[in-house]
């Protein structure tokens, strides 16, 4: 033990988001340490997706603060939320890309072009280097032989592999996953989870919204339970799944196992 606390790369304090009269996030406190794999679990409609979209400021929070890599993306000085300039947001997003439930591949681009898009337009890599990088990542996710296919020619599981490669092509420090396997047929889920598991062994920090409890238990360093717009409970997987401290978490865990 060195006693050094790993520095958090992602911190949210008192994060709020309302849509009209509905308060979807009601003061979220969350910290994700560098290299950590954090899973976010909780009932549907609890605000998990909204939280992820607020963290990279795809949605403008209504209150609270966010800092990523030690840089404030959004802060609340009491008079209102101040969001960092567009350039700062873009740089943070490029280091913290997102993988979506419904893949969201660019439908007019081939598999290879999808993976190259970020490196070319955002990172300014030249074409040759971007192609090399994209091919290497496609090989890693088992999609090397599909590089010239269009998204409408491949299965859901394959789309998600490409989407993961597209995120990895940014050489990110953090990846945000929003239910990456929820739209997939059961037999395709394993393959995607295995890929994420491989990434978990690398240095990349990950925040994963998931309903796959066994996966969360195996892969996560920390699990956060989100319900009613708050992080109700956080802890290591054993504590969360074996020794829930709140009735809400206990109910949720029970409902999953039924």
């Amino acid at each position: 033990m060195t006693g050094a606390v790993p520095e958090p790369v992602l911190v949210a304090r008192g994060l709020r988001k309302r849509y009209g009269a509905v308060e979807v996030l009601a003061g979220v406190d969350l910290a994700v340490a560098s290299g950590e794999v954090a899973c976010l679990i909780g009932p549907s409609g609890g605000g998990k997706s909204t939280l992820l979209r607020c963290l990279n400021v795809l949605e403008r929070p209504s209150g609270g603060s966010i800092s990523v890599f030690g840089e404030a993306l959004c802060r609340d000085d009491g008079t209102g939320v101040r969001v960092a300039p567009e350039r700062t947001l873009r740089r943070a997003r490029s280091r913290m890309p997102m993988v979506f439930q419904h893949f969201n591949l660019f439908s007019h681009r081939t598999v290879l072009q999808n993976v190259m898009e970020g490196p070319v337009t955002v990172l300014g890599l030249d074409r040759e280097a971007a192609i090399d990088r994209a091919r290497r990542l496609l090989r890693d996710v088992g999609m090397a032989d599909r590089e010239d296919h269009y998204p409408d020619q491949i299965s859901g599981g394959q789309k998600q592999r490409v989407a993961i490669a597209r995120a990895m092509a940014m050489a990110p420090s953090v990846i945000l996953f929003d239910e990456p396997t929820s739209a997939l047929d059961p037999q395709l889920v394993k393959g995607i989870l295995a890929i994420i598991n491989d990434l978990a062994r690398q240095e990349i920090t990950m925040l994963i919204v998931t309903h796959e409890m066994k996966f969360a238990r195996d892969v996560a360093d920390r699990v956060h339970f989100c319900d009613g717009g708050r992080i109700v409970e956080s802890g290591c997987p054993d504590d969360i799944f074996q020794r829930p401290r709140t009735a809400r978490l206990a109910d949720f865990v029970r409902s999953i196992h039924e």
Partner: protein
Amino acid sequence: MHRFFFREVPEYFPFLLQGAWITLVLSLVSMACGLALGLAVALGRLSPYRAVRWPLDAYVELWRDTPLIVQLLFIYFTLPEFGLTLPAFWAGVAGLSLNLAAYLSEVFRAAIAAIDPGQRQAALSLGMSRVAIYRRVVLPQMFRATLPTVGGYFIALLKDCSLVSFISVNELLRHANIVIADTFDSMNTYIMVGFIYFVMSFGSARLIGLLERRLTPRHQRHGAAMLPGPKGAAA
């Protein structure tokens, strides 16, 4: 008895072709202006600001709810009274492209709205700028989706150009009328004019079809659904 067809090319045929050339140039210039303006109006109408949207909505309504010929006559004959005099050709370009832009802006706006917002979100989440997202994700898909419709508008425009003869642009129909005034041979002249319009429209339609084919990935081309597509191994 009327002479039905010609044993030789009539001497005024080159004069008609000259008119056809003006029609073609007028169409191309108006199309280019109409596309640019239509796109700008479509983007403006997607703006979050009411002050931007409202005047553009009004423009589109006004232009779609009045006849093109009235718009042309207004630009050519009425605007000079307000101190804006345009040469006939440019009055024609202004009238045709303002009219076209009103329609195209609707076509573009609908096509942009139809693009899955998830793709824009994915682009944003990679750190792409709004300009880059339009350039790389939104507009390419919009153009591909609207190409057949835009092509249809171009062919309609070629023919609408005949209205510009009313404001004394020397295009095909006006040249035809000059010929008829001279020869009294309206039947053969109009047959030739119809033939020239047909060749221009048909040729354009073929070119647009080729362009559309080129811009469509092989597997999405017409008839490709029947062919066995590349099979994805189970992921």
